[in-house]
């Protein structure tokens, strides 16, 4: 755990040096450097990615924490529709496809991590060591699918439903 924290701190340090420029107009050279350094942190093999339910996201993520209420079937249904339209080209529930199988994702990952993964995948690749490690394994970048925070919350509810009930909502 100490090493995980160290990794994150290193990433932050570099992020600050890069000027924190997220805009498309940001300096290309700086960003490349950042990515290289991140890769180093990510590939050190010291990060325990299973231990992410207590995940604290990097500063720039849009979702800091999620209040999970009781399961909401309507929301889960909306999430199921969105999943079909925007996610199924790369993710299946039961098996690895372009990206990981999503069954059990709410048991493996913090809900805020899941929503940020959907909302700011590029930022997560750069600043979240877990995401970076996943990229090394799957070699395909998680893509932004033009979803709102509300949509991402519905998707999260869909994954919760699957994991709790074992059926489609």
């Amino acid at each position, binding site marked *: 755990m100490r090493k995980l924290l160290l990794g994150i701190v290193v990433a932050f340090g570099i992020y600050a040096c890069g000027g924190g420029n997220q805009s498309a*107009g*940001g*300096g*290309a*050279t700086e960003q490349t450097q950042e990515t290289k350094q991140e890769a180093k942190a990510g590939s050190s093999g010291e990060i325990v990615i299973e231990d992410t339910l207590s995940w604290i996201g990097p500063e720039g993520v849009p979702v800091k924490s999620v209040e999970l209420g009781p399961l909401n079937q309507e929301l889960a249904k909306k999430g199921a529709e969105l999943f*079909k*339209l*925007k996610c*199924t*080209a*790369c993710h*299946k529930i039961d*098996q690895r*496809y*372009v990206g990981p199988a999503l069954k059990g994702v709410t048991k493996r990952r913090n809900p805020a991590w899941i929503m940020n993964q959907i909302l700011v995948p590029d930022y997560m690749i750069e600043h979240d060591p877990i995401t970076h490690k996943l990229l090394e394994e799957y*070699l*395909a*970048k998680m*893509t*932004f*699918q*033009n*979803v709102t925070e509300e949509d991402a919350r519905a998707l999260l509810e869909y994954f919760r439903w699957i994991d709790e009930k074992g059926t489609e909502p």
Partner: protein
Amino acid sequence: MRELLKKFAYVGTALVLVGVAVNSCQKQATKSGISADVAKQVYVPPGEYDEFYAFLSGGYNGQIDVVGLPSGRLLQIVPVFSVDPHNGYGFDEETKAMLMTSHGFIPWDDSHHPELSQTDGVPDGRWVFINANNTTRMARVDLRTFETVEILEIPLSGGNHASTFVTQNTEYVTAATRFAVPIPQKDIPIDVKNFQGTLTFIKVNNDPNYEGNDRMEIAFQILVPGYDYDLAHCGKGPSHGWCFFTSYNTEQASTLLEINASQKDKDYIAAVNWKVAEKCIADGKYKEVPVTYYHNYYDDKTHMAYSKVEKSVKVIDPKDCPGLIYFLPTPKSPHGVDVDPTGEYIVAGGKLATVLPIHSFSKMIKAIENKEFAGEDHGIPVLKYEAINYCEVPKPCLGPLHNEFDGRGYVYTSCFISSEVIKTDLKTCKVVDRIPTYYSVGHLMIPGGDSRKPWGKYVLPMNKITKDRFLPTGPELAHAAQLIDITGEKMRMLLDFPTMGEPHYAQALPADLIMDKVWKVYPLEENKHPYATLSEEDAKVVRKGNVVHVYMTAIRSHFVPDNIEGIRVGDTVYFHVTNLEQDWDIPHGFAIYGAHTSNILIMPGQTKTIQWIPKHPGVYPFYCTDFCSALHQEMQGYVRVSPRGAKTQLRWRGGGSDWKTG
């Protein structure tokens, strides 16, 4: 004496060029006459943005180049009147209709004069219009997508050159006949004296809430004598309500115009009061002329172009509509006609004249009120030259063509023959500065330089001849533009850059009027394409007789389906590919072996269709042409083609699924 000095100047230039050949170390500095410190005025560091978007016409390539200024970097090429293998425009099934005309499918044209839409006389960043000179059309490009969304054929015209110039609030866009022709067309002997011209006003639907792209229609056409109508600009401020068209060949020569159309000392600027035209239309003083022309437009939701075939047009004969049109005598075969930001000065490019004529709008109105006519031409009143002319700038340069304004009281004129841009004080009619261009400048452009509020920082001459400016590329050289700083008393040359095709005119405006409105994707939820496949599980192959529709999806980095069997020689196959990405700048491409079309580039959330007619049995690969991810090379598939009449089962698979059948 003046001429003598000029000769010395030319000899001096020649000596400088000899010097260049001898001492190549000094080449750059000597040739352009610039100092090294200009670099920082045009240097845009990596990752930073240009200050202006510029839209340069592509001339004989039928396109529009989008260039960033001051860097001169090419940002995009927008196909308008020409098919484009780069993205499939005009090759794919969706956009073929954009290039339909009453003469059938026309895959090419000659695009000349882009014009930005304006609100209150200022470019507003919504659209750019452009004309097709050859098979008379005009187009509208949407600056949210940088795609051609509407093309309107102009009937009763031969060569749409004096186009596309807008009125102050984009109420209308102009078109006009460059070549006089029989109107309506008929089989008669070639004699221009029996031909006519038309000046066309295209009404634009400016309603911001209107979602369709069928925004343009021909409001009316004005029948005019059979001269060549060359260029136009519309009034602004006090002259709002008027448009001005230059003419040449008032001699009405039918052959060897080079000599025969240059006999008269003066031709005309036609001044048209379009508010009077509106009244005449309302009063029924027009004829409905039966004629067929196409109106094509692209639907952002179905991702498909549609053609409406129009069957008639309203034509006004000036005889029936007094006050509609006046001729302003103007020396000599004038080319450009440009109205200054105040709306008062009308500056002509007196192409073959030894003076630069500047007319006064207020004098023109007085002359009309006082009936100061020199006579009539084909029933159209001709105003007295002295009564409308503000001044003649004496001996400005050789071959003045076009004028743009800086908003500070100066007009900048391109001089083709003497290869220079001159700066003239509009009030005093004195040339105050001149700078050479390399070489033979045609049009020139100041951002907003034909509007009420120019962003008068640079002038961009676009040159017809490039010669020794860049590394040689065989007999054909790219045309070139130069960027000139006009913020000081003296013009300063900043930059040279090659341009694509032949830019005839350009427009530019500050980047922030466009960049925040640009679409990044086509939202999948709004995709109403009839052959869209919005989820991999809906991908399928459907046979209808000899026609096969493939409903295909693409995402990084696989197609579904990626294996198809049961296609036969004699089939026509349509691949309807939907890009399921919703991430900016992730197009996928699609190309298949032996296709007689082009590749297609499908933007995120978009559906595009390409036709394929396999000729021989075999197994043919298809693949993604746009490098999309680390696994792009894996983004491929196969189609099995059996002989004509074979019983091979139609089946497909992909995305990890087993074979499926229809």
